[in-house]
């Protein structure tokens, strides 16, 4: 009930209407002590400007990098971040949880 995601979704819509490439990253699954619940989201535009969060700040940098790629390719991606997941990603969650983040282009 209590979230301010509408502000970032409005920003995403405004960016898109202003001609920016925009991506939306959403936490779709969590295991263990994930910092933000499923449904938390982050919006990114092609300037690299982003609003919102999908973790406590641990993986946002990596999500933004992937999102920029999604903006140029147009292909959605599923990212997974976990503390033990060192092969696929070089960042992890210090809290010990695992999160799955869906990144898609808006438009």
């Amino acid at each position: 009930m209590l979230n301010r995601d509408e502000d970032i979704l409005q920003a995403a819509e405004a960016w898109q209407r202003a001609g920016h490439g925009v991506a939306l990253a959403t936490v779709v699954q969590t295991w263990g002590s994930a910092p933000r619940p499923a449904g938390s989201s982050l919006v990114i535009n092609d300037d690299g400007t982003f609003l919102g969060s999908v973790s406590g700040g641990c993986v946002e940098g990596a999500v933004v990098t992937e999102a920029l790629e999604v903006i140029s390719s147009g292909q959605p991606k599923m990212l997974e971040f976990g503390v033990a997941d060192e092969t696929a990603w070089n960042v992890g969650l210090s809290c010990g949880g695992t999160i799955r983040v869906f990144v898609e282009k808006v438009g």
Partner: protein
Amino acid sequence: MKLETLAALNAERAARRPAIVVLDPANGEQRLVKASEIAADPLRAELSTQLRMGTSGMIEVGGRKLFLNVYAPTARLVIIGAVHISQALAPLARSLGYDVTVVDPRTAFASPERFPDVPLIAEWPDIALPPLNIDHYTAFAALTHDPKIDDPALLHAFERDCFYIGALGSRKTHASRGERLRAQGASDADIARIHAPIGLDIGAVSPSEIAVAIMAEITAQLRLPKVDVKVNAA
């Protein structure tokens, strides 16, 4: 997400109507289900369960994994009484993510100098409250100590099924408030919904501490599993 879907979702949110985005992560396909469309949706059981819990999550239907992203309206706090406690309560509630409105017909209290940046309505509750479209996603705090102002406001809060209703006043004050409200048609179940004395018992003394006690109680009401069963359930 298609721009049309995003725009439609933003429109539902702006109108404070719940909506759910159903996403198939395997192929990126998604659709928006408005609250009014849930009853006719093939996933109605799953959608309504998820909406009731107010949480987003994965479900499995016929071997497909779907993500249901629940968008419930931003919680609001309506404060009756532009009093000293409200001056501390309004900014605290805003920092917790609530949209805050303060109502007080006494213009000496309801002044912008006392409440910078807070929407303030210097009207009686019967004029101020109906246009606010108070709903279940609203917490309601009656703080004037004046029955002429608090009582009609509380009756309105009962009607609109606010998720939290609190009123300032001692147990003795609250007992006489209950009698007055009953005389005006409130049920025992309505009166039982009022948190009074308002706020968690943390020994609060100053207006700021009372504000913390009130927001703690509202947070508990919002987040803890419901234990209180409605007495008047049909």
